[in-house]
């Protein structure tokens, strides 16, 4: 099934994927932070914790 990929180095084979995931997570983090600022601006309360974990 994955015979043709057996010669790709197992570590670096996942490097590109990690770059893409990191870029997506970075983007999500940016929007999450921006959204918090907007909510804080309107509510004036500190409603959110600084939990950086993404929702599962």
């Amino acid at each position, binding site marked *: 099934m994955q015979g043709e990929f057996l010669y*790709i180095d197992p570590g670096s084979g996942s490097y590109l994927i990690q770059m893409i*995931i990191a870029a997506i*997570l970075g983007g999500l983090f940016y929007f999450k932070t921006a959204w918090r600022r907007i909510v804080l601006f309107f509510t004036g309360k500190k409603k959110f914790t600084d939990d950086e974990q993404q929702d599962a």
Partner: protein
Amino acid sequence: MPEQRKHPASFKDPSGFLFERDNILYRQVNQVYKEHYDLLKSSGLYENLVTKNQLIPHEEVEPSPVLKDAYKILRPELIPFISYAWEWSFSQLKAAALATLKIQQAAIASGMTLKDATHLNIQFRKGQPVLIDTLSFEKYNADLPWVAYKQFSECFLFPLLLERYSKFPVSKCCQAYPAGIPAVVTNALLPFRSKFNLGVGLHVSLPAGLSSSQKSSGRQIRFSRKKMEQLLANLAGTIAGLTSGIGGEWQKYYHEGIKSGEYLLAKEELVKSFSEKIEFKSVLDIGSNDGYFSNLVAGKSSIVVAIDSAPYCIDHLFRDAAGKHGDNILPLVVDYAHPSPPMGFDNREHTSFLTRKHFDMVLVLAVVHHLCITNNIPLQPLASSLCTLGKMFIVEFIPYDDEKVKIISTNKEAIAAMLTRENFEEAFQPNFELIRREKIQGSKRWLYLMEAK
């Protein structure tokens, strides 16, 4: 010169290896790993992880090198019973996965990184997952992504997702794919509804989609510590939110397992009275169910290995054990009719379940009739298999006319009819010496205390 024997599972890593001398286990650290080993110590990472019970402690002993490139000889603390992911329940693999991520997070903070992230490097000690491979760490280069990311996903995340969404027990997944299940296979097995989970999208669908189009790229990749921290936090968040998808089905089975009060009390008194006469440190409880009798003997033992074929029972016992007596109870998903075979290269890397330890006491309670009727195992072969496992045995015999036997013996009446006390005693007599037998009040069942010949 004392005989030195290299451990059959310790050949993959050039950093060092395990060996045995005079029945003591040692780990040799090779010269090539010197820089990393020194950093593990000088960065405080070793001390930090050992204090948090996340890394197996060791003492450095006099270098008496097995090979000339030895840098250090370590004597690690011993694990009372080695177990493998193909014997773990969902919560056990989940705990091992989260421990691996915490260790990697601590390593990054200390300027090191895990070069391996397989469940084979994790063992359970006092109910907690602990990393046993001291040589898994290497110096961290923040420009590079996590070299063990793919291995971590395939060994931990994918089996957990498959039990969550496809009811595929993690133990079976890890037995079928001991080195990790590939993303393309996981992606094909996961149902459509799972694809709405961000973790599934990022860590399964994305690599599965890319692996069919990706050729080896010579492109220079630059990562950062912040990106690594975000990746680890996302993996931890994804895994922490997962629950087993097979819990509901087993819950019914578990509640049905609770018997009538009089019988259970009488049985408990007899097991106590039988075991009082025995000196034991290690116990194997076959067919442990919710661990009622494992808990009963746990106070007197240093290790109780509780096995059951039902993943839900084992998962419940694992989650429950930490709070009670029981951090010396190790629950494992093992079906006695299909125990774990020897695995790995040359069939010598990972031992079969039945040959792993000789126990002081073995509990075989309310399980003989299941093996005989459900699995068609005759009494005599069962007796000769059991007797190799330990010294003293407490065996419960349940005859053909018991209510529970009638339920499981539909269409198997001829096999069930063999379950008479006379047949049972005759079959066990060649392998066991009978010490005591008592009828359990409130039932037609009998309890035997026997010694393996």
